[in-house]
């Protein structure tokens, strides 16, 4: 939920990166963290297992600049992708302002993408949100791998409502900021309606 503080002239929004296990959600955040100036970001918090799988969430605050004299700060979260962390995933979506779905482009992960997207819709609904109305972007990640599904097929399978679709290689940063920009713009556009 967007927080507007008139005393400190700040707008705070929450964006959640969602998707199946090992699709690259944490890699997206890691790239944003590594390529942002120190004064624009806070710490990157990763609650991960010993094998670096997300256990609860990753979190980083990112300051983008000012709009109408208000500092805009985005709180970026990832969810744990593995199926059995369902309870945690649901908790993290609470109060979300925008969602990025990170899809794994590899052929063998298409079923996992579809399942995770369905799970996202369910979990949003349980908090009273509707994927069709919430700011949302679809990232097709790992486009550099040899066995990827053609973009058109992925779009017809995963696109829900004409949301922006961004091809990405999160490990090298390609498409990472374009994805963030696509969802952040929609979140700020929502503010106009308040």
């Amino acid at each position, binding site marked *: 939920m967007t927080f507007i503080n008139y005393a400190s002239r700040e707008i705070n929004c929450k964006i959640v990166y969602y998707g199946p296990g090992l699709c690259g959600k944490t890699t997206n955040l890691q790239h944003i963290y590594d390529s942002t100036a120190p004064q624009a970001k806070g710490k990157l918090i990763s609650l991960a297992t010993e094998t670096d799988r997300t256990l609860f969430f990753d979190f980083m605050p990112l300051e983008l600049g000012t709009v109408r004299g208000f500092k805009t700060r985005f709180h970026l979260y990832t969810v744990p992708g593995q199926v059995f962390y369902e309870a945690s995933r649901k908790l993290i979506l609470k*109060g979300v302002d925008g969602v990025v779905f990170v899809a794994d482009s590899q052929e063998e992960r298409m079923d996992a993408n579809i399942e995770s997207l369905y799970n996202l819709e369910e979990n949003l609904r349980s908090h009273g949100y509707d994927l069709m*109305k919430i700011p949302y972007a679809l990232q097709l990640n790992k486009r550099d791998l040899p066995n990827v599904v053609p973009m058109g097929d992925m779009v017809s399978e995963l696109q829900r409502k004409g949301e922006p679709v961004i091809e990405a290689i999160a490990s090298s940063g390609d498409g990472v900021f374009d994805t963030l920009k696509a969802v952040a713009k929609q979140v700020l556009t929502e503010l106009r309606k308040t």
Partner: protein
Amino acid sequence: MADGPILIREERYHEIKAVLARLRMDSSARVVVLVEKDGQQIAVHGELGDLDTTSLASLAAGNVAATGGMAKLIGEDEFPTLSHEGERESIHISVIGRILLVVVFDERSSLGLVKLRSKQVSQELSAVFAAIERDSNENDPESSLFGEITDEDIESLFTQP
């Protein structure tokens, strides 16, 4: 659809800051932070030093959400307070409706004192937050400020150095 934004007007912010300052003094705490249940920091008071209160707010909310989930599994609605005692520094969290009151304290205070003082201000904080929610639901002339945000304003955020 997500609820509308929470608007914190200056006077409310100062009311909250005054309560936090009083709580901090009465409980001899190091830092007091007020956090919304979704992890957004509302206000903070105390000896911050290099304490990263943004991360603290997010983790406190995650902590409360996780223990709240456990509470439900055993048939409780939620656990209204959480305490974490360290060797030198400790944290006490009270759940007050939609807000979390996080108190960081050291050997200058005690868990009992922090619990007592936190409880004493909880009604007051609850009332201020209810007023914030009312403000957020009202048609605020200042909020038209955001209605005037242009595509260029948004675009400029991504081109600022």
